[in-house]
C-alpha cells in the first residue's frame, strides 16, 4: 500500500509542471552557483599559493636588519581551503584571509573580503550551491509538503481514499516517501555534482577525506530537507485550506531561514559580546605590566631577570655578561607575554563558545542554522577550522620569535642591542606548513549541530505521525 501511494505521488509530482519547473530552477541555480564557486575557489587557491610563496620570498629577501625588527616584519600566512569550498564557501566572505605573524602579539585574521567586495554583502546570502540547496530546497520541501494533502482534501480525493479503508498513517507515509523521492533527485544530483567537483579539484592526499566530508554534508542537507518535508506534510494534514497551509509553510520558512539566522547572530553578539580589539589589547597590556596571581608585572620580572643573570655570570654589570642580554630579555618578554596572552585568549574562546551555544539553542528552533553549520564544518570553512589554523600559526609564530631572540642573544654581548641578521639567518626559519584536520575532527566539532538535525528529523516524523492520526476528510 505504502509503495503504491509513494509511486502515485511521485508520478503526480512529475506531472505537475510547476514542481518540475521549481526543481529544474533549483538544479540550474545550484549548477550555476557551483560553477561560479569552482571559478572562485580555483582563483582563490592560485592567489593564495602565489601569496604564500611571495610572502616567504619577501621574508627571505627582506635584507639585513636587526633580528627583532625582522620578527616585527614577520611572516604572512593565508588559510588554505578544501575543494569543498567551491560548493560551500562558508565564512570566507566575512573572515580575514591572512594572518600577520609578528613579534609579541597573537595574530588576528585581517583583510576581510567583504570589506572590499560590495557584491558579497548586498543579497540574502544565496550565492553558493550549498545555500541554494538549503534555502530554496527547504522552501520547495515545505511547499511540496504543505500542498500535498490539503489539495487531496479540497478536491475530495482524501474522502474517497479514507472511505476505502486505507490507513491514514500508511497513506501519509506513502505520500512522504513519494515526495521525498521527488525531492531527492535535485539533492542527489547536487550531491554528486559537489562531490565530483570537489574530488576532482582536490589534492590526491586529501581526496578521500574530501569525499567523506561531502557525504556527511549531503546527509545533513538530506536530514534538513526530509524534516522540512515532514513538517510541510503535517501542516497540510492539519490545515483547512491550501491557502492556510501555504501561509503556515511560508511562515516556517521565513522564520527559520530569513529571521532566525540573523536573530541568532544578533543574540550571540548581544548576550556574549566579543571584546573589541582595543579592549582585548588593553586587558593584555594591563596584565603584562601589572602581573596576575600574585606575580609581579613585567618591570618587576625584568629586575629579577637582571639580578639572576648577574648572579649566574658572577658579574656586577649587564655589560659584562658573556651572552647577549638583549636576547635574553626579549625571550623573557615573549615568554611572559605568551602567558598573559594565553589567559586572555582562553577568555576569548569562552566568549566564542557561549556564542556557539546561543546559536545551537536557536538551531533547535530553526534547523537551517544547524545544517549550515554542519556544511560549513564539513567544507572546512567554519570558525572552528579558522581557529585551528590560527592556533597552529600562533605556535609557529612563537617558535620563530624564539629563533630571532636566540639569534640576538648569540649575536651580541653584554647589554648591546644593535646587530643585523642576514638571508642565511632568515632561511633557518622553516616555512609554515599547515595540515588541515580530518573529517573525524570536523564531525566532533559539529556533533551538537548534527544531533540537533537528527532530533529535528525525529520530531518532524513524530509530528507527521501525530497529524496522520488526526487526518480528517
Amino acid at each position: 500500500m505504502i509503495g503504491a501511494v509513494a509511486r502515485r505521488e511521485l508520478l503526480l509530482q512529475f506531472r505537475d509542471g510547476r514542481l518540475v519547473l521549481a526543481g529544474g530552477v533549483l538544479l540550474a541555480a545550484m549548477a550555476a552557483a557551483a560553477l561560479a564557486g569552482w571559478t572562485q575557489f580555483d582563483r582563490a587557491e592560485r592567489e593564495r599559493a602565489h601569496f604564500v610563496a611571495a610572502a616567504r620570498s619577501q621574508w627571505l629577501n627582506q635584507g639585513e636588519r636587526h633580528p627583532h625588527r625582522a620578527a616585527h616584519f614577520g611572516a604572512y600566512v593565508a588559510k588554505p581551503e578544501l575543494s569543498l569550498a567551491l560548493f560551500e564557501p562558508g565564512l570566507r566572505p566575512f573572515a580575514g584571509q591572512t594572518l600577520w605573524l609578528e613579534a609579541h602579539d597573537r595574530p588576528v585574521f585581517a583583510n576581510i573580503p567583504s570589506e572590499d567586495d560590495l557584491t558579497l554583502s548586498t543579497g540574502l546570502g544565496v550565492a553558493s550551491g550549498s545555500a541554494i540547496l538549503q534555502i530554496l530546497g527547504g522552501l520547495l520541501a515545505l511547499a511540496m509538503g504543505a500542498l500535498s494533502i490539503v489539495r487531496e482534501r479540497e478536491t475530495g480525493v482524501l474522502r474517497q481514499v479514507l472511505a476505502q479503508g486505507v490507513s491514514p498513517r500508511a497513506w501519509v507515509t506513502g505520500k512522504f516517501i513519494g515526495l521525498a523521492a521527488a525531492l531527492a533527485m535535485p539533492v542527489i544530483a547536487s550531491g554528486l555534482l559537489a562531490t565530483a567537483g570537489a574530488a576532482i579539484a582536490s589534492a590526491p592526499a586529501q581526496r578521500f577525506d574530501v569525499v567523506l566530508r561531502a557525504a556527511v554534508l549531503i546527509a545533513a542537507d538530506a536530514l534538513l530537507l526530509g524534516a522540512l518535508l515532514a513538517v510541510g506534510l503535517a501542516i497540510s494534514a492539519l490545515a483547512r485550506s491550501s491557502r492556510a497551509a501555504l501561509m503556515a509553510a511560508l511562515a516556517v520558512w521565513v522564520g527559520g531561514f530569513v529571521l532566525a539566522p540573523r536573530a541568532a547572530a544578533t543574540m550571540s553578539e548581544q548576550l556574549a559580546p566579543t571584546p573589541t580589539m582595543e579592549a582585548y589589547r588593553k586587558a593584555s597590556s594591563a596584565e603584562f605590566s601589572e602581573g596576575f596571581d600574585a606575580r609581579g608585572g613585567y618591570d618587576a620580572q625584568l629586575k629579577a631577570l637582571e639580578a639572576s643573570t648577574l648572579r649566574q655570570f658572577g658579574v656586577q654589570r649587564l655589560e659584562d655578561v658573556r651572552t647577549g642580554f638583549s636576547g635574553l630579555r626579549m625571550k623573557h618578554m615573549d615568554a611572559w607575554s605568551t602567558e598573559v596572552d594565553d589567559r586572555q585568549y582562553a577568555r576569548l574562546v569562552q566568549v566564542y563558545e557561549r556564542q556557539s551555544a546561543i546559536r545551537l539553542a536557536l538551531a533547535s528552533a530553526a534547523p537551517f542554522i544547524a545544517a549550515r553549520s554542519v556544511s560549513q564544518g564539513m567544507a572546512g570553512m567554519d570558525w572552528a577550522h579558522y581557529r585551528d589554523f590560527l592556533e597552529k600559526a600562533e605556535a609557529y609564530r612563537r617558535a620563530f620569535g624564539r629563533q630571532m631572540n636566540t639569534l640576538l642573544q648569540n649575536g651580541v654581548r653584554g647589554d648591546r642591542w644593535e646587530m643585523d641578521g642576514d638571508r642565511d639567518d632568515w632561511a633557518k626559519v622553516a616555512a609554515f606548513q599547515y595540515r588541515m584536520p580530518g573529517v573525524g575532527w570536523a564531525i566532533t566539532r559539529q556533533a551538537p549541530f548534527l544531533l540537533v538535525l537528527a532530533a529535528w528529523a525525529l520530531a518532524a516524523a513524530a509530528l507527521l505521525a501525530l497529524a496522520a492520526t488526526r487526518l480528517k476528510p
Partner: protein
Amino acid sequence: MIGLWRQEWHLFVKARANVGLLAVLLVLSALGAWNGIERLAAERSAAVAALADDVSSFAAKREKLVQLEAGKIVEGRFGSPRKPQQAVLSAGRPVTPPPAELGVLSSAEARPTPELLRISILTRHKDQQPTLDDPSNRLDGPFDLAFVATWLGPLFALILGYDVLARDREQGVAALLASQGRSLAAIAFARLGVRFAALMIVIGGVAFGAAIVTESGRLAVALPAFAVWLLALGLSLGFWLALTAVINGRAKNAAAASLAVLGVWIGLSMFMPALIGSVVNTLAPPPDRLQGVLKLRSVESDLNRRRREVTAAYYSAYPANRPIVQGDEYEHYFVTELYPRTLAFDRAVTPFAAQMDAARVRQAELMRAASFLSPSLAFKLLTEDLAGAAPERRVAFLTSVDDYQARWRGHFDHKLASMTWLTVADYDHKPEFKRAAERAAARWARISLLMAALCAPLLIALAGAWRALSRAAPT
C-alpha cells in the same frame, strides 16, 4: 472613493490575522531599530572617549613639559614630553568622519568607512583594522532596520496583498463584489492602498522614532534624508503591492497567487542580487588585498635594504633637519631611519591605496546601475548610502585624513627630524582635524540614481496592475 477606502481600512483592521502580522512587523522593526540605536551609541561613545583621551593625553604632556622647563621634575628615559620621537612620533590622534545622516538604519555587514581612525606621523597604510569577531555572526548580516525594510517589508506586503482579489474569487464572492457599483480594480486598489498605508505607518514610524532618538541634536540634517528614505520606502513597498495587484488580476485562487508572488520575490530579492553581484564582480573585480599586502611588504623590504640611501637622501634634501641632538642608538633609529622611510613608504604606497579605493567605488557604481533590475537591491543600496556605508564616503574621509596627516607631519617635521626639543608653543599650535563632508552634489546624484532605480519598476508594475485589474474577471 474615500468611503471605499474607509470601509476597506475598517475591514483590514478588523481582521485579526492582519493586525497580528502588523504587530509582528512592529516588533521586528523595533528590534532592528534597537540594534541600530545600540550600535550607533557604542560607536559614538567610543569616538567621544578616544577624543577625550587624546585631549587629556596632550594636556598631560604639555603640563609635564611646563614642569620640566620650570625644573620641577626630572626627565626619565621614556615618556619625555619634549623629545618629539617620544612625544609625537607614534601618538595616534583620533579622527572620525562626519556622521552619516541616518546611521541608525543600517549596521551593514561591511562598512568601508572606518568610524574611528588614529593618525600619527607614521604611515596609516599598515593599519589593518583587525577584529576578533566570530565571522559566523556577520554571515547573515545584522538585524537592523535596513534588513526589516528591504527584505521583510516586501514579504509582509506580499503576504498581506497576495489574495486581495484571489480569495474573493476562490470563495465565489468576487461576482457579488463586482455587482455593487464599484469596479474590481477600484476595490483592489483600495485594499492595497490600505495595506500600503499600514506598512508605511509601522516601518516608517519605527524608523522615524529611531532617527529622532539618535539624531535629536541635528534634525535639520537628518530630517531631509529621512524624507528621502521614506519616499524610497514608499516606492519599494508600492512596487511589491503593485505586483500583487498584477497577480491578483489573473490568479484563479489564493494558493496559486501566493506561489506566484513568492516566486517573484525569490527571483528579484534573492537570485537577482546574487546574479548582479556575480556579474559586477567579474566586470569590476574588488581590490586584491593579498596583492596589497605583498605590495606594502615589497616596498617596506626595498626601503629597508636602501635605508641608508633613503636617510641620506632625506637629509640631503632637507639639510636644516639634520639631527642636532644625538640620542642613543635605539632612539636614533626612530628618527633618522624610520621617519624618512615612513615618508618614502607613503609616497610609494599612496597611489596603490588610491587604486584600491577607486576599485571599490567602481563596484558600487556598477551595483547602483544594475539595481534597476532589482528594487530590493536598489532600496538596500540607498538605505546603506544614507546610513554611511557607501565607498565614496570612505574616499572623502580618507582624503581629509591624508590632508590632516600632511599638516600634522609638517608641524613637527623639522623638530622631529632634527631631534630638536619641543616647546609649549608646539603643543599649543598643533593642527586639529577638520571633518570634511562629501560633496553634496555627488552624494545626491547617487541617491537620485537609486530613486530612479526604484521608480522605474514601480511604474512598470503600476501599469501592469492597471491593465490586469481593469481586465480582471470575477471568476
